[in-house]
């Protein structure tokens, strides 16, 4: 029996409803995931704002060098990786399989570099005495807020790198198509988008003066 003749619930396949919003179901699911994840990040940033506003001795430990310089590099890498992801999606849609794989791996490499810089920054702060509930400068809640927010984002970056590598490999073997590259790209742009709020709220509002 051909796929066209397969019936569902006694109705021919031809009368089944089309995909909502005329996009592939996988893409809609990714959008719904992104929305729920955006609300999760918003909640954690609101909680951070609540604590910071209510705490008079909130520390401001981020010096221009090395912290803010590091943040500038990390931002450049993440935004650039969004551009390389776009190149990968464009190549996939144009049928350029090798180009799509190459750009997706470049994006994953950017994500990996971002994660390494982030871990290096964490180690620097830990070396200065920052822990989850104590630090040398002020309110002990700073460490909990900082590591929670940046840790959640870092987990998303590492997860995204793994996902990009898997999708690229499966696309190479023909198990995935260009839609899958586009959908993983949506996730990657979202990770970039979250960083656009983490930088001003967590770092720039806490620069040392």
């Amino acid at each position, binding site marked *: 029996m051909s796929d066209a003749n397969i019936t569902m619930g006694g109705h021919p396949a031809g009368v089944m409803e089309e995909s909502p*919003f*005329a*996009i592939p179901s996988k893409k*809609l699911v990714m*959008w*719904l995931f992104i*929305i729920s994840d*955006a*609300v999760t990040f*918003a*909640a954690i940033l*609101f909680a951070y*704002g*609540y*604590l910071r*506003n*209510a*705490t*008079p*001795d909130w520390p401001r430990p981020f010096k*221009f060098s090395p912290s*803010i310089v590091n943040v*500038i590099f990390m*931002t*450049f890498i993440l*935004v*650039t990786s*969004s*551009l390389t*992801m*776009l*190149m990968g*999606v*464009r190549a996939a*849609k*144009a049928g350029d399989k090798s180009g799509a794989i190459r750009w997706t791996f470049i994006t994953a490499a950017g994500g990996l570099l971002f994660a390494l810089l982030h871990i290096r920054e964490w180690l620097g702060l830990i070396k200065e005495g920052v822990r989850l509930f104590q630090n040398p400068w*002020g*309110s*002990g*809640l700073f460490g909990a807020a900082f590591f929670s927010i940046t840790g959640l984002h870092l987990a998303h970056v590492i997860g995204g790198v793994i996902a990009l590598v898997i999708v690229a490999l499966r696309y190479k073997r023909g198990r995935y198509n*260009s*839609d899958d590259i*586009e959908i993983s790209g*949506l996730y990657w*742009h*979202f990770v*970039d*988008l979250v960083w*656009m*709020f983490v*930088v*001003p*709220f967590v770092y*720039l*509002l806490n*620069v040392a003066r």
Partner: protein
Amino acid sequence: MDAAKKDSGGLTIYLVVYVSILALAGVQILLAYQHTEGPQLFFRVLSVALVQAWLAVMFFMHMRTERRSLVLSLGLYTVFVLLMMNMIWSDSFRLLQMRPFPK
């Protein structure tokens, strides 16, 4: 029609958005080192971050070429939830007037 296919009108627009997002990130850093503090600085960097996010969603994530019904469904829900979260601020200020968190 597929959003990415519709949006394949050349790299120029993506490059412009990419440079704009990086430039806005630079503006945020400049704002942080001006002599502004507190709520004024917060609202300035928030405004710049919102513009960056709008550019990323509309161009990088191709939301501008999706169906209006999808944009409204996702956008209205998100904005509603984010606005509702703002109810915490009154309690945050109340706490500031009473007793700070212990060290």
